[in-house]
C-alpha cells in the first residue's frame, strides 16, 4: 500500500452492487477508505453510519491488523530522520526529502519540497523575507500561487552586482511574482564599501523605509552557505577576501544573509558587520517562522551551527544531510528508530449527552426573570413602560421634537437590544420570547412612548417574524398619527450574496446602526436625516460569525444541533442555527483569516481607510479568546494599512450560550466616525463625550 490513495469516482463504482465482505463493517470501511479512496464522510453515507463510527472502525481495523500500512523504506527513513531532528533541536517542523530522488538535482528537489510546504507556513498578511542563493531561487521558481493574501515579500539583504542568476533581487522578485505579493526591494548593495557609506544610505528615506519592512517580517526563508572554497559566498560579492586573509573568519563554518557564524551558531564579529545592508542575526532569531532550506554534505556543519544557534524553526533538507547532522550531533544511525505514535484511542461512536446545564428556574420564566434582573441591575439606564417587562424605555429626559428610536427582537441576545437603550442610543426596546419576535401590541406601546412628535425609527434585524410584527405595529401607529419608518439591519454578509444584500440577516453589526441612529436623533436631526444615516451605517457594516459549539435553548435544554469534535460552523447567525457551511476545526488565526478574507473580498478597504471593529462573543466564548482573535485581526488590518478608529470587544450581541465569535468591520467616513464618537449611555455601551 505504498501507493497514494486514488479517488474512485462515483460513476466507476455505480453499476455494480457493492461487495459486503461478509458484512464485516471493519473490513468494508477499510476497503472503501484505503482501496476505493472514499473520504470518511462518504463512507459514513455509504454505510449509513455516523462519521465518528467510521473513524473508530478504521482505528479498530488498524489495531486488529486488518489493515497493515507499509511505507517505502526510503520514505520511512526520511520521516524517521525528520522526527529525530525535530526532537533534537526543538524544531516546530522538519521536512526531509528522501535520499534517492531520481535524476533531479538535489537543489531542485529541495526547492520543490519547500515550495510545496509553503502553503502551511505562509499566512495572509505575512511579510516574508527571502535571502539569496541557488536553493532560494529554486524555491522561488517552484512556488505556484498561494492561498495567502496581502503578502509582502522583502529582500533580506541589499543587492549584488555579481554575475550570478540567484541574486537577492532575483530570488525576491520571483517569489513575489509567484505568490502575488507586493515586492519591497532593498535599493542598496548588500555590502557597502565602508560603515560611513552605510550610515549615509540609512539616512536615505527610501532605503530606511525599505529596511523598516525587515522589522515587520513574520516569516523568513533562508539558505546557508558553507565556507568551502567553491561555495557561492566567495563569488557572490558578499565577502571580502581581504578580511579573510586577516584571519577574521578562521572559526566561521557558514554564512547566512551576509553574516558569519561559528560551529556553535554564535555570530562572528568583523569589520564587515557595519557594512552589511540587511537583516541582522539577532533580528532573525525573533522572526516567528524561520525556514531554513539547505542540503548537501558540505552544508552539514553550517546547518548544524544554525540549528544550535536557534536560527531555525523549520528545517527543510534531504535524508543524507539530515543523517549527517544527526551523526555530527552524536547520534548512532541505528539508534534513530521511528517514533511510534500511541494508537489512537477509539472515539466513542456517538455524541455525548445533549443536555446542557443552565442557571434557570422554570424554562418558561427565563425571559421575564432575566428582564427583572436586568432592570434591577441597571435602574439608571432602563425602566419598564407601564409595568410591562417586555416594553422597556431609556431612563433619560424626553425632548420635544426628537426622533424616537425603537429597537427590538427576540430575547437570547443579551446584552443585545436592552443594553443599547439610553441617551445617545435607542429610546425604547421591545423584547420577545427567546429568538422570537415580540408581538405588535408591545411594539406599539414602545412606539407611543418614544414618539416626541418627530416620528419614530424602527431598527431591527432582517427576519421574517420581526418584519411581520413590526409592520403590523407600524400600521397601528400610523392609525394613531405616528409615523414609524423601518431600518432592517443586514450586516451578516455570509447569509446571502453581495447581489442580494437586502436579503441578508442582521447580526452584531446592529449595534453600530443603533449607535449612529441614536446619535443622529440626539443631535435633534429630523426623521429623514436620521433614516439616511441609519441606512448608511447599516450599509457600512460587514459581519461574519463562526461557531465551535451549538447553543442550547432554555426551553429544551438541548443543543440545537450537533457538531463533531473536529468540525466547526462558518457563517453562523445569532439564533443558534447552523452556519452557512461546516468546515474542519481551525486555529484562531486561520478562522480570523477566513473571516477577514471574505469581508475584504466585498468591503475592499482602501489604504488609509478608517474602520470601526467589533469582536463579539456569541455567548460561550471567553474574553481571552476574543483577544486572541483581535490580535490576528489587527495584524491583518495593519497589513492593509487601515486605521482602526474604534474597537469594541466582548459580549455585545449573543446567541445564548453558543461558543463562537463574530467579527464586524464598519467602514467609516468623517460623518459616521463623528456619530460613533458622540457620547452615549446604554448599560452595554457607555461613552463619554470627547
Amino acid at each position, binding site marked *: 500500500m505504498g501507493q497514494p490513495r486514488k479517488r474512485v469516482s462515483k460513476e466507476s463504482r455505480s453499476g455494480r452492487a457493492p461487495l459486503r465482505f461478509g458484512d464485516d463493517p471493519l473490513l468494508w470501511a477499510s476497503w472503501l477508505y484505503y482501496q476505493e479512496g472514499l473520504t470518511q464522510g462518504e463512507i459514513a453515507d455509504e454505510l449509513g453510519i455516523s462519521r465518528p463510527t467510521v473513524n473508530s472502525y478504521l482505528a479498530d481495523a488498524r489495531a486488529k491488523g486488518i489493515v497493515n500500512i507499509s511505507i517505502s523504506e526510503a520514505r520511512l527513513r526520511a520521516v524517521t530522520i525528520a522526527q529525530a531532528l525535530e526532537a533534537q533541536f526543538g524544531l516546530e517542523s522538519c521536512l526531509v526529502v528522501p535520499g534517492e530522488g531520481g535524476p533531479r538535482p538535489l537543489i531542485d528537489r529541495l526547492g520543490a519540497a519547500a515550495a510545496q510546504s509553503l502553503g502551511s507556513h505562509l499566512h495572509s498578511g505575512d511579510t516574508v523575507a527571502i535571502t539569496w542563493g541557488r536553493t532560494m531561487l529554486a524555491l522561488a521558481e517552484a512556488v505556484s500561487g498561494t492561498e495567502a493574501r496581502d503578502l509582502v515579500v522583502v529582500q533580506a539583504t541589499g543587492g549584488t552586482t555579481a554575475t550570478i542568476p540567484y541574486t537577492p533581487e532575483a530570488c525576491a522578485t520571483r517569489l513575489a511574482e509567484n505568490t502575488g505579493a507586493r515586492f519591497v526591494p532593498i535599493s542598496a548593495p548588500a555590502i557597502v564599501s565602508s560603515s560611513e557609506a552605510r550610515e549615509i544610505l540609512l539616512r536615505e528615506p527610501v532605503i530606511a523605509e525599505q529596511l523598516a519592512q525587515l522589522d515587520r517580517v513574520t516569516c523568513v526563508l533562508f539558505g546557508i552557505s558553507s565556507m568551502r572554497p567553491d561555495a557561492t559566498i566567495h563569488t557572490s560579492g558578499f565577502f571580502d577576501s581581504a578580511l579573510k586573509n586577516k584571519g577574521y573568519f578562521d572559526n566561521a563554518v557558514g554564512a547566512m544573509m551576509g553574516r558569519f557564524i561559528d560551529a556553535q551558531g554564535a555570530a562572528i564579529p568583523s569589520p564587515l558587520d557595519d557594512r552589511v545592508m540587511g537583516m541582522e542575526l539577532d533580528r532573525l532569531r525573533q522572526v516567528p517562522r524561520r525556514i531554513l532550506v539547505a542540503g548537501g554534505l558540505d552544508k552539514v556543519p553550517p546547518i548544524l551551527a544554525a540549528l544550535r544557534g536557534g536560527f531555525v524553526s523549520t528545517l527543510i533538507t534531504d535524508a543524507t544531510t539530515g543523517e549527517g547532522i544527526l551523526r555530527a550531533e552524536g547520534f548512532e544511525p541505528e539508534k534513530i528508530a521511528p517514533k511510534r505514535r500511541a494508537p489512537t484511542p477509539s472515539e466513542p461512536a456517538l455524541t455525548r449527552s445533549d443536555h446542557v446545564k443552565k442557571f434557570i428556574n422554570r424554562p*418558561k420564566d427565563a425571559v421575564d426573570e432575566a428582564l427583572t434582573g436586568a432592570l434591577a441591575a441597571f435602574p439608571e439606564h432602563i425602566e419598564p413602560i407601564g409595568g410591562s417587562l417586555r416594553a422597556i424605555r431609556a431612563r433619560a429626559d424626553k425632548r420635544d421634537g426628537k426622533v424616537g428610536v425603537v429597537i427590538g427582537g*427576540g430575547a437570547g441576545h443579551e446584552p443585545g437590544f436592552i443594553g443599547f437603550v439610553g441617551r445617545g442610543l435607542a429610546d425604547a426596546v421591545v423584547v*420577545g*420570547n*427567546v*429568538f*422570537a*419576535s*415580540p*408581538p*405588535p*401590541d408591545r411594539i406599539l406601546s414602545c412606539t407611543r412612548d418614544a414618539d416626541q412628535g418627530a416620528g419614530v425609527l424602527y431598527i431591527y434585524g432582517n*427576519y*421574517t*417574524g420581526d418584519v*411581520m*410584527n413590526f409592520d*403590523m405595529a407600524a400600521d397601528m401607529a400610523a392609525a394613531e398619527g405616528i409615523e414609524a419608518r423601518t431600518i432592517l439591519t443586514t450586516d*451578516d454578509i455570509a*447569509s*446571502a450574496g453581495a447581489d442580494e444584500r437586502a*436579503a441578508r*440577516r442582521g447580526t452584531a453589526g446592529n449595534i453600530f446602526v443603533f449607535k449612529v441612529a441614536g446619535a443622529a436623533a440626539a443631535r435633534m436631526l429630523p426623521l429623514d436625516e436620521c433614516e439616511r444615516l441609519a441606512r448608511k451605517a447599516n450599509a457600512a457594516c460587514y459581519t461574519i460569525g463562526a461557531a465551535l459549539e451549538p447553543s442550547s*435553548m432554555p*426551553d*429544551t435544554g*438541548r443543543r*440545537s*444541533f450537533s457538531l463533531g469534535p473536529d468540525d466547526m460552523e462558518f457563517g453562523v*447567525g445569532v*439564533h*443558534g*442555527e*447552523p452556519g*452557512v*457551511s461546516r468546515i474542519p476545526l481551525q486555529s484562531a488565526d486561520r478562522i480570523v483569516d477566513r473571516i477577514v478574507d471574505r469581508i475584504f473580498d466585498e468591503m475592499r478597504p482602501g489604504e488609509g481607510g478608517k474602520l470601526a471593529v467589533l469582536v463579539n462573543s456569541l455567548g460561550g466564548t471567553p474574553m481571552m479568546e476574543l483577544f486572541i482573535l483581535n490580535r490576528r485581526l489587527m495584524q491583518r488590518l495593519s497589513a492593509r494599512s487601515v486605521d482602526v478608529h474604534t474597537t469594541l470587544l466582548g459580549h455585545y450581541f449573543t446567541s445564548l450560550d453558543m461558543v463562537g465569535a463574530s467579527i464586524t468591520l464598519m467602514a467609516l467616513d468623517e460623518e459616521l466616525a463623528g456619530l460613533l464618537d458622540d457620547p452615549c449611555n446604554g448599560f452595554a455601551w457607555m461613552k463619554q463625550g470627547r
Partner: protein
Amino acid sequence: MQEINNKGAGGIISGVAAVIVDNKAYLSEIDGKIGDGDHGVNMAKGFGRAADRLDPEGTLTEALQVLSDVLMSEIGGSMGPLYGMMFSDMADSLGEAETIDAAKFGAMIRAGLEGVQDIGSAKVGDKTLLDAFTPAVDAFDASIAAGNTFPEALVAMKAAAETGRDSTIDMVAKVGRSSRLGERSRGVLDAGATSCAMILGAFAEDITARLS
C-alpha cells in the same frame, strides 16, 4: 348527517391544542435542524394558553378568535402573526353560522389560507406551512366537487396535507430564517408545514367523529 353545530364545536380547538402540546418536543426537534429549535415551544405556549381560556362548549368561531388573539398578541415570532391571521380569518368566515357543513368548512379553510398568504410573502414550494396548507384546501374542494361526502373530503384534505408536509423534505427554504442556509435546508421537514398538517389532521378527525 353532513353538518355539525357551531355551538359546542369550540372543543375542536381544545383537541387541536392538545395535539400541538403533545408534539412540542418533536416540532422543536425538526425546527432545530435548520432553525432555532423553538417552533414546538412557542406553538405549545400559544395553543396551550388558548386551550386554557377558550370555552369548549362555546362556538368554533369564538374558540378560533381566542386562539388567534393569543397567537397575535402574546406569541410573536413569525408563527404568531401567520397562524394568528389564519385563525382570525377562519373565525370571520364562520361568523354567526349555526351549523357547519362542507361548504362552510371549505370556505373557512380557504379564508384561513388567504389570510396566511396576505401576511406572509411565501409561495408554494418555498418550504413553509403553505406547502401543506395549500394542497389540503385544494384537495378538500376537489373532493367535494367530485361528489364526495364531507367526511370523505376531510380524509382527502388530511392526506393532501401530509403529502404536502413530506414534500418539504426535498425543498430548499426560500423564506424565513432557514432560507439563509440555502442548500443545507434541504433534507429536513419544514416545522411550519408539519404543525400545519397536525392542525388540519386534528380538525379532520374531530369533525369526522362529530359527523358520525
